[in-house]
């Protein structure tokens, strides 16, 4: 992977919609770090801005594409992946990237996540997983660890926790990776690989929400949360790698080779046209 790194100011000049600054994010929020990694990945791949489109849903993550200068669809809660599906099907030449949060992606939009993976459509989902609904003030999400505190689990969350990477593999995704805001260089590299991959790819970015998750669970501010990621993350190369309990697997976790949806549908078109011609239409 060629590493071509622009200076922060050049990057800002090229990609940031400065008129929309400052961001709405709290001090220390991890979302901006993930967005930065995504923009650097796009830049490093040398993609033309006009060929890259973003879709976003709702939540703190749902503000991310508002600060960058790409075509972007700001959709309803959970529907960023379906809007992305329509964009990709209508114009397969586009590089389609969905920026989504844990609530957006595996909560309200969970069904779409499963089926985008099943279709293996060439969309890259970057999932900001901060284990909480931050925007609405800290309610538990499907990715909140069992036992964690939130404003709607004041006695500890008693439900199970979704692992988005496991879910993506079960559903049929063909590229799955995970990193954290501490491991930001790795995150950038994984996003670049996911974009290059032809098929549905998921990059789960563990990102701190110090204002809600960190505060409610008494982990501390952003630096403490990132230190925790440093302590807990284990670099592996398989989703099935054995790691001690409480550790987070990071790295390129799964890759499969399966026909991509728009390619398959192009064959449907050829067949339909062949039959129509045979009928003498």
């Amino acid at each position, binding site marked *: 992977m060629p590493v071509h790194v622009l200076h922060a100011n050049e990057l800002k000049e090229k990609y940031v919609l400065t008129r929309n600054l400052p961001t709405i994010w709290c001090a220390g929020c991890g979302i901006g770090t993930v967005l930065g990694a995504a923009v650097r990945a796009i830049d490093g791949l040398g993609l033309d801005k006009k060929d890259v489109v973003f879709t976003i849903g709702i939540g703190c993550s749902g503000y991310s594409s508002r600060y960058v200068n790409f075509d972007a*669809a700001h959709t309803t809660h*959970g529907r960023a992946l379906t809007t992305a*599906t*329509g964009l990709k*099907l*209508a*114009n397969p030449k586009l590089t389609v990237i969905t920026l989504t949060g844990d609530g957006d992606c595996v909560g309200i939009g969970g069904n779409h996540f499963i089926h985008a993976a099943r279709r293996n459509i060439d969309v890259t989902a970057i999932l900001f997983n901060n284990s909480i609904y931050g925007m609405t003030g800290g309610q538990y999400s499907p990715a909140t660890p069992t036992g964690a505190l939130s404003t709607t689990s004041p006695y500890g969350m008693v439900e199970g926790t979704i692992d988005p990477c496991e879910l993506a593999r079960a559903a049929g995704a063909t590229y799955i990776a995970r990193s954290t805001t501490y491991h930001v260089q790795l995150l950038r590299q994984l996003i670049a690989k996911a974009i290059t991959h032809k098929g549905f790819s998921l990059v789960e970015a563990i990102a701190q929400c110090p204002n809600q998750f960190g505060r409610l669970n008494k982990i501390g501010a952003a630096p403490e949360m990132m230190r925790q990621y440093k302590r807990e993350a284990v670099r592996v190369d398989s989703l099935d790698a054995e790691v001690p309990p409480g550790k987070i697997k990071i790295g390129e976790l799964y890759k499969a080779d399966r026909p991509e949806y728009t390619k398959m549908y192009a064959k449907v078109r050829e067949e339909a046209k062949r039959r129509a011609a045979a009928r003498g239409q």
Partner: protein
Amino acid sequence: MTKVLMQGNEAIAEGAIRAGVRFFAGYPITPATEIAERMASRLPEVDGTFIQMEDEIASVTTCVGASLAGVKAMTASSGPGISLKQENIGMAAMHECPLVVVDVMRVGPATGMATLPAQQDIQQARWGSHGDRGVIALCPSSVAECYDLTIKAVNLSEKYRLPVMLLTDAEVGHMREAIAIPERVEVVERRRPDVPPGDPSFQPYAAKPDGVPPMADFGAGYLWHAEASTHNVRSDLASTDHKSADFLHRRLIDKVEKHVREMTFYSTRRLDDAEVAVVSYGVSARGSAGAVELARAQGLKAGLLNLNTIWPFPAHLIEDLAGRVRAILVAELNAGQLVREVRLAANGRVPVHHVGRFDGLILTPTEVLARLREVL
């Protein structure tokens, strides 16, 4: 002109393709499924795309994505599915994303009577998604009108950049009639920006005098944001910018309401010298037409106004009628939905009565005639 035997739902699919629709996303539901089936076989023949989505919400939002990429898109469902789509019909309205949503109405509420006709989504079409916005909904009462009004629906959605609803019902959707396929039809393309990509004067939500902003395809280099939150002309959030909020929300209403006449389609039968008018639409207009003939045979001067445009409600037609007839009877398959609009427009100048049913049966000519006699 070729004549072909076609089902209403098939005519909708064929009309859409004729109007340039090249993308359809849907979810199976009675009594609308034939539209999806026809699109599944036909669209790939014309380099279009059909996709069956995982649910109704996915269907409409996938269409939004396709439309943003510059492809004319359509989805179809029935009452239960339309209820699910509503939030995102609102999103398409806020994005100002052209799109056609077909509602083949069946009896509700809830699962209701899945195979039987109703006209119970009239107010849902108008107010089903939250917030205020202008709404266009067209309603065919024959297979030929299914074809023609679908083309008009696509054209209006492209011209005014909004989701347009085609309201039909299980009866019209499933009936078969021979229709003449016109050799020429008017097909409207959305207006694209008149400045090149990168031009600093480009503002994605700056409207032309007709209230409609030109629309750039995603991928064309204009780098704009289709925004579901309230926004200013540059598409930046107007979270506390009340002036931009008022400007945008009014424009979404006005771009429809200021063009009501252009959007009004209707037909009449024996209305010129009528003393009493039946106002109806869709399948109910067919029974009403029969009632008018029966009435005339019995010496009662009845006439029919068959509305093909339900929304924006063509109040001007009713205002005109109110000065000419002694009474109006609204015939529809519900407990009284469009009659509210007719009463508002008549404004007390003429009595407005209602005949309706919502048991899965359609209104017959004798039933409408009996009610006419009753109210006179």
